[in-house]
């Protein structure tokens, strides 16, 4: 069963008040006020001196479980919202792999599901590792003491206006996550994954924007319930929800729809980091652990929506 062996997150210590971004982003004073007052987006992290590779390296630097285990890493995945982030032939992921002693690993990017690509990457990593598994002496599939691992990165640079703000909905922050995944680990085991890919919500034409606004929360609720069903659980069994950090208002309304208490949704980072693309879930996982919200055996649910070139709604249930 796919498991998260270790999670590390880098969020830049330098944060910019949302009002200071209004000018550069062409926001009106009213739009900036709305972001702070109702969307709960007060500050976002920026690391102007860091490249994308630097962000990923800073996340990996906190992954103590990787030290001395580099030889076990078979796959390196980078979950990204932006399909293209550097000109050819620059390849930040390959740079990072070389720097970390992971040049032997198969490295690739997971994209086209926007900010839901992070959950997809976890699922893919686990499935790739499981497919490589060999049966043990007792017939059970496993990979042995030197069990292969996958390293899943998330996060990116906010290098264009499109990568900094999404129409009156969210402001993106810089940062990165690094997560070691195994196929048969015992901690933070993935119990289920559900997603719904909705190509009709392509923002390029804008013709379905109003429909996306209407269906956003019911669609996310549907995949959350489907993930719970597949895990054999009910929402009441969930200790905490790790949200995508789109904005606070969306999660207030999601909680009303689901009849789930907001204080069990880890919204702490929305106000101080912004929406850090595919790294949100991992940042919120770290926060949940640091706040003591997850005890051994607790079940939690990560939810994400990727919107832009179509929309993807995704939910994943874990056992801590």
């Amino acid at each position, binding site marked *: 069963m796919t498991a998260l062996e270790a999670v590390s997150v880098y969020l830049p210590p330098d944060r910019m008040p949302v009002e200071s971004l209004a000018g550069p982003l062409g926001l009106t004073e009213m739009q900036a006020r*709305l972001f702070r007052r109702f969307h709960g987006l007060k500050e976002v992290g920026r690391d102007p001196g860091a490249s994308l590779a630097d962000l990923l390296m800073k996340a990996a630097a906190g992954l103590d479980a990787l030290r001395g285990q580099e030889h076990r890493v078979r796959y390196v995945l980078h979950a990204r919202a932006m399909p293209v982030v550097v000109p050819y032939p620059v390849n930040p992921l390959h740079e990072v792999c070389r720097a970390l002693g992971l040049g032997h690993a198969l490295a690739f990017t997971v994209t086209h599901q926007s900010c839901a690509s992070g959950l997809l990457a976890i699922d893919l990593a686990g499935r790739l590792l499981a497919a490589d598994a060999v049966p043990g002496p007792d017939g059970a599939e496993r990979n042995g003491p030197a069990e292969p691992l996958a390293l899943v990165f998330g996060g990116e640079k906010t290098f264009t206006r499109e990568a900094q703000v999404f129409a009156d909905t969210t402001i993106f922050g810089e940062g990165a996550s690094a997560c070691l995944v195994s196929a048969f680990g015992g901690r933070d085991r993935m119990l289920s994954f559900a997603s719904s890919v909705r190509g009709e919500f392509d923002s390029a034409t804008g013709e379905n924007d109003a429909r996306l606004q209407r269906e956003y929360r019911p669609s996310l609720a549907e995949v959350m319930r489907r993930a719970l069903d597949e895990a054999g659980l009910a929402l009441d069994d969930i200790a905490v929800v790790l949200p995508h950090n789109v904005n606070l208002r969306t999660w207030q309304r999601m909680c009303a729809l689901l009849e789930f208490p907001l204080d069990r949704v880890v919204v702490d980072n929305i106000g101080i980091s912004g929406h850090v693309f595919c790294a949100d879930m991992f940042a919120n996982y770290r926060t949940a652990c640091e706040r003591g919200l997850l005890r051994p055996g607790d079940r939690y649910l990560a939810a994400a929506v990727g919107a832009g070139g179509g929309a993807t709604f995704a939910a994943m249930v874990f056992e801590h």
Partner: protein
Amino acid sequence: MAAPETGLDPAFRQQVVDTMTTVLDRLLDRAEPVSEDMRLMEELGLSSTLGLELMLELEDQLEILIDVELMDQDQMRTVGDLASFVAGHSRPA
């Protein structure tokens, strides 16, 4: 028109309605004036973003703080519904 919630200060609710219709007239740039029984989405085409802008304008003009986290937009069909919510879920700023 939805019946105003009991326990609301009628004078304050009316003040909210008056302010709200004035702000909506300007925000929506309509030919006809907005009235209390108009449906927010179907008739006025009020998006959730514009709805929040309306809340911010009400807070500014009435010098109040609205408990927006308690607002269930799906349950508020008309201008009057929204005014009742604001009148019943706000406090002096």
